């Protein structure tokens, strides 16, 4: 009798895990309807001319040169020589007659080759040459599984970008975003992870009720998000690799705006309670201890951490309309207002170095993305839409991704912090919004 009870108890536990894993099982499912196409919207007026020569290929994998060209041109700062104009296609630095490439108008030349290694891995070798000085700027190898060639090519792009422009590239990075299809009230919501260029889109959560506010942990392993799957807002955290999912907060009222602390041990979040007054709290994920940060009748929400983990920036309308405030994490700290100028400043996001603050601002009658330099207070409006929102910095701090609209459809847009380059990422079939750029992976 005792044994049977134990067995059925274990089976129930196992079946609960299986029931939970039916959601988890959706990881790796390609996002058929919400695949993104990237297009350039603006670039610098004098892009750097570069020749990315087709790589000597290992049969079966794509040519990394195509991905590298796409990355570099997509950044708006490079102009790649068309393959049709190349009369020779060397694959090693030693075989490059630089004078010829210089004569064709190139400032830089990239050559490379793919080869197979023992154990089934592939190696991507490349050389980056300065056509004007003859200097070899980079000569490097990236290895990976055959199905990870896109990632290896993006890493090559990152090195080229950094060697030439002095800024770390963010091509080998990922984004998460929300896709919505159908008409209200019958809509399908998906939380999707994709490469930063929109490729390899994979669904990690699907629901018939809203999903919003994804937030990456700083090791890129977890996503926190808000889901209305139980007809009220609740906060979940999900491990991207395994699909393991945990309910973090389903308290009465609003549960919103989760944000991971830099050390990954806490979440800042918004709780409304049954009286419906949103305030900011910090939840310790291991002890479950909840610390209250704001306590006033205004709407206080959208808290994010400074990179040193010592302050939170958040939106509050305690002054009448929404503005961004900063408060130290710790007892007795009082919030100080950070934004001025516009009557509406909300949805703060810090650059990785903590010096720039991105926000949604009301610019005339348009909701746009602006960046404020925290030291000087100067603000630049970077986007040009009517209904822009949800800014997120790339991990190199040089670009922002945000939600925009085009012809009534929600799309993702990217803009460089200097305002000079931009791209759109859009889906044919779905509205895509709420993008968040993942941190650099630690591989």
């Amino acid at each position, binding site marked *: 009798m005792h044994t049977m009870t134990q067995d059925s108890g274990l089976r129930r536990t196992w079946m609960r895990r299986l029931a939970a894993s039916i959601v988890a*099982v959706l990881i790796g499912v390609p996002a058929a309807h919400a695949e993104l196409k990237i297009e350039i919207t603006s670039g610098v007026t004098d892009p750097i001319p570069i020749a990315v020569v087709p790589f000597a290929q290992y049969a079966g994998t794509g040519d990394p040169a195509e991905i590298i060209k796409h990355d570099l041109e997509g950044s708006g700062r490079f102009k790649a020589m068309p393959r049709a104009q190349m009369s020779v296609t060397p694959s090693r630095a030693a075989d490059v007659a630089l004078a010829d490439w210089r004569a064709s108008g190139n400032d830089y030349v990239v050559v490379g080759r793919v080869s197979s290694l023992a154990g089934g891995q592939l190696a991507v070798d490349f050389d980056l040459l300065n056509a004007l000085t003859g200097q070899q700027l980079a000569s490097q190898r990236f290895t990976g599984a055959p199905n990870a060639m896109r990632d290896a090519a993006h890493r090559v792009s990152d090195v080229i970008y950094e060697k030439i422009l002095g800024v770390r590239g963010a091509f080998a990075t990922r984004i998460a975003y929300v896709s919505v299809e159908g008409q209200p009230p019958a809509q399908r919501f998906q939380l999707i992870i994709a490469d930063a260029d929109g490729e390899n889109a994979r669904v990690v959560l699907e629901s018939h009720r809203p999903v919003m506010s994804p937030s990456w942990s700083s090791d890129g392993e977890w996503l926190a998000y808000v889901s209305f799957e139980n007809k009220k807002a609740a906060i979940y955290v999900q491990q991207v690799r395994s699909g393991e999912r945990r309910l*973090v907060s389903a308290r009465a009222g609003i549960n*919103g705006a989760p944000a991971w602390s830099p050390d990954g041990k806490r979440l800042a979040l918004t709780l409304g309670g049954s009286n419906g007054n949103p305030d900011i709290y910090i939840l310790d994920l291991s002890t479950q201890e909840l610390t209250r940060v704001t306590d006033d009748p205004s709407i206080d*929400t959208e808290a994010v951490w400074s990179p040193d983990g010592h302050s939170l920036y958040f939106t509050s309308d305690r002054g009448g309309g929404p503005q961004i405030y900063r408060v130290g994490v710790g007892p007795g700290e009082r919030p100080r207002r950070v934004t001025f100028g516009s009557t509406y400043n909300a949805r703060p996001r810090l650059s990785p170095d903590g010096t720039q603050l991105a926000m949604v601002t009301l610019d005339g009658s348009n909701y746009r993305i602006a960046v404020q330099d925290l030291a000087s207070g100067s603000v630049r409006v970077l986007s040009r839409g009517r209904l822009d929102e949800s800014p997120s910095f790339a991990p190199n701090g040089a670009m922002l991704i945000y939600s925009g609209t085009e012809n009534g459809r929600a799309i993702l847009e990217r803009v460089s912090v200097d305002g000079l380059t931009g791209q759109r990422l859009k889906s044919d079939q779905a509205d895509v919004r709420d993008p968040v750029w993942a941190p650099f992976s630690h591989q």
Partner: protein
Amino acid sequence: MRRALLMMLIATATMLAGCPGHRAKDLPPSSTSVPESGAGAQSAGANANAAGAAGTGSEESPGPQEGALARRVVYFDFDSSEIKGDGTETVAAHAKYLAANSGVHVRLEGHTDERGSREYNIGLGERRAQAVRHSLLLQGVADGQISTVSYGAERPAVQGSDEAAWSKNRRVEIVYLK
């Protein structure tokens, strides 16, 4: 064995991917969490609310339909949570009914138009739901009869990016429950 069963479930889930309503049943209710270390502490926040956590079945009822009671939506001006115009009559009608039927429950669902930041809009939607709630309380409805939820801009009634659509989305919906 477990792996084979999981593979079968994957196949089934993929096949059912286009089937509406299927997902909601499969997602675990909020009071159950995956048993991991700290599971007791994890579910504490959820269990505190278990009584109010909605199940996945249909819990809504048509409710009273006579006269003004058939109106279930209160509309709001931009950036406002003030009940006015027709909304005042609508709320008054429901308040009278609820005060006279203390066993009946409603859920007030607050919404905004699409403009601006999504999480701030969750706060604004809640503010509207609370405005209706306070009005009901003042008119004799018991606190226990009312629950609120804010969808912010996440569940528009009308698609569109002009004032005609926006004015239909700034609303509180009064939903009668079983």
